């Protein structure tokens, strides 16, 4: 199976007049890769698409997190990143929040799964999230899986076509958190299994060519197997 060239940390990408992009740094007059990945040039910017990474919060990102600690005025939320997010009680109770009357523990305990957005982050302080907004809030039902955040772009595809294809062929609703956490909404266990199998294939083979065809094949293969089972 053919693939694109892979670079490793320290490998010189170019020594020309290029702008430093994602996962690259300038050392002396050369631009070098800082992660294992695939180099890409867009205009005069050179970057490396990492093959394995972790989530660094960005303002406005949609994420799925799990409440890890409850305080009297906030919740700490695990967003599968080096930084733990903060959800202020004011965001949930509103401006009239009164710590003497409102009980954060009764509202949301540790383990609650949330769909939220990053409202503030600058590395000197923990990221702040909000659950106020369309489609945000506590997740009541569905299945959760995880994909390495570096594969999110491939999972969504150009203009969301990969995600749409998976949703249509499995009859599910999928929400992709930028932090790599994925919510699969379906009643069917077999559909959930099929989605997870496809996501794992994308995670494993995202950097190789003809990904779309292989995803369609795996989704249709399972359909055929199911048909065979029912006819037998």
């Amino acid at each position, binding site marked *: 199976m053919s*693939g694109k060239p892979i670079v490793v940390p320290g490998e010189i990408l170019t020594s020309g007049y290029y702008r430093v992009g994602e996962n690259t740094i300038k050392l002396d007059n050369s631009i070098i890769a800082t992660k294992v990945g695939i180099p890409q040039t867009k205009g005069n910017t050179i970057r490396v698409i990492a093959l394995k990474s972790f989530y660094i919060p960005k303002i406005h990102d949609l994420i799925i997190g799990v409440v890890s600690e409850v305080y009297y005025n906030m919740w700490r939320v695990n967003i599968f990143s080096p930084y733990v997010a903060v959800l202020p009680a004011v965001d949930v109770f509103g401006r009239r929040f009164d710590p003497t009357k409102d009980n954060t523990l009764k509202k949301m305990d540790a383990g609650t799964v949330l769909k939220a957005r990053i409202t503030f982050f600058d590395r000197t302080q923990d990221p702040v999230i909000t659950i106020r907004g369309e489609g945000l809030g506590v997740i009541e039902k569905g299945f959760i899986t995880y994909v390495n955040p570096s594969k999110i772009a491939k999972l969504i595809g150009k203009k969301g076509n990969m995600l749409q294809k998976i949703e249509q062929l499995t009859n599910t609703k999928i929400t992709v958190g930028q932090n790599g956490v994925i919510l699969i909404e379906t009643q069917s266990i077999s559909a959930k299994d099929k989605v997870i199998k496809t996501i794992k294939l994308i995670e494993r083979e995202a950097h190789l060519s003809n990904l779309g065809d292989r995803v369609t094949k795996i989704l249709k293969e399972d359909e055929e197997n199911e048909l065979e089972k029912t006819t037998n």
Partner: protein
Amino acid sequence: MSLKKQLINEQGIRTDGRGIDDLRPIKITLGYLAHANGSVLYEQGKNKILAAVFGPSEVHPKHAELPDRAILRVRYRMAPFSTEERKSPAPTRREIELSMVIRNALESVVLTELFPRTAIDIFIEVLQADAGTRVAGVTAAALALADAGIPMKGITAGCAVGKVDGKIVCDLNDIEDKEGEADMPIVYIPTLGKISLLQMDGLMTQEEFKQALSKAINSAMKVYQLQVNALKTKYIKVER
């Protein structure tokens, strides 16, 4: 009267059949552990070293975090069954010192300033030891860091050189390490052309030192090529 063992014969062949510049066979298995963010099983001759990386993650205890960069925490340990005689599982002075030495060698390549207030944990477990475990440990740790997607300026590659029977030899094995006249572990960053670790035990003349340094860098370059191949082939050969 004690008889000194002959470690290199007249044809320049060492006790394990290698020439004086040959390295022991190296095998790299990336992604060896399922739960670590990055891991590797690094085998160099009889050395078997497992390295695992976790993080970057929140620092506990909080007072240990740094406001401007991530902290590296290295734990180098030898398993009780790694040596000929059982080793006590309690951390020894040597292991604590080597953890620090390895941390210093890796700090020069990891871009810790990108993740302030976090910690990167590196575990190096020597499952079987046959000399040169500190350099093999750094080599393995660099691979595990790259496998975990931690940004780095380069990959560190290590190799020990030494003086045995008056000759400068590469990649010492256990007997050469114990009976030889000098031992010099070195960790090199090929892409930067810099040395991040250099220690020496024993005696060498200035000329011998220069020769040893040049041989060590050549050997480290060979190790580096194997590291690069391993990192690239992991993604080219997709397991099905």
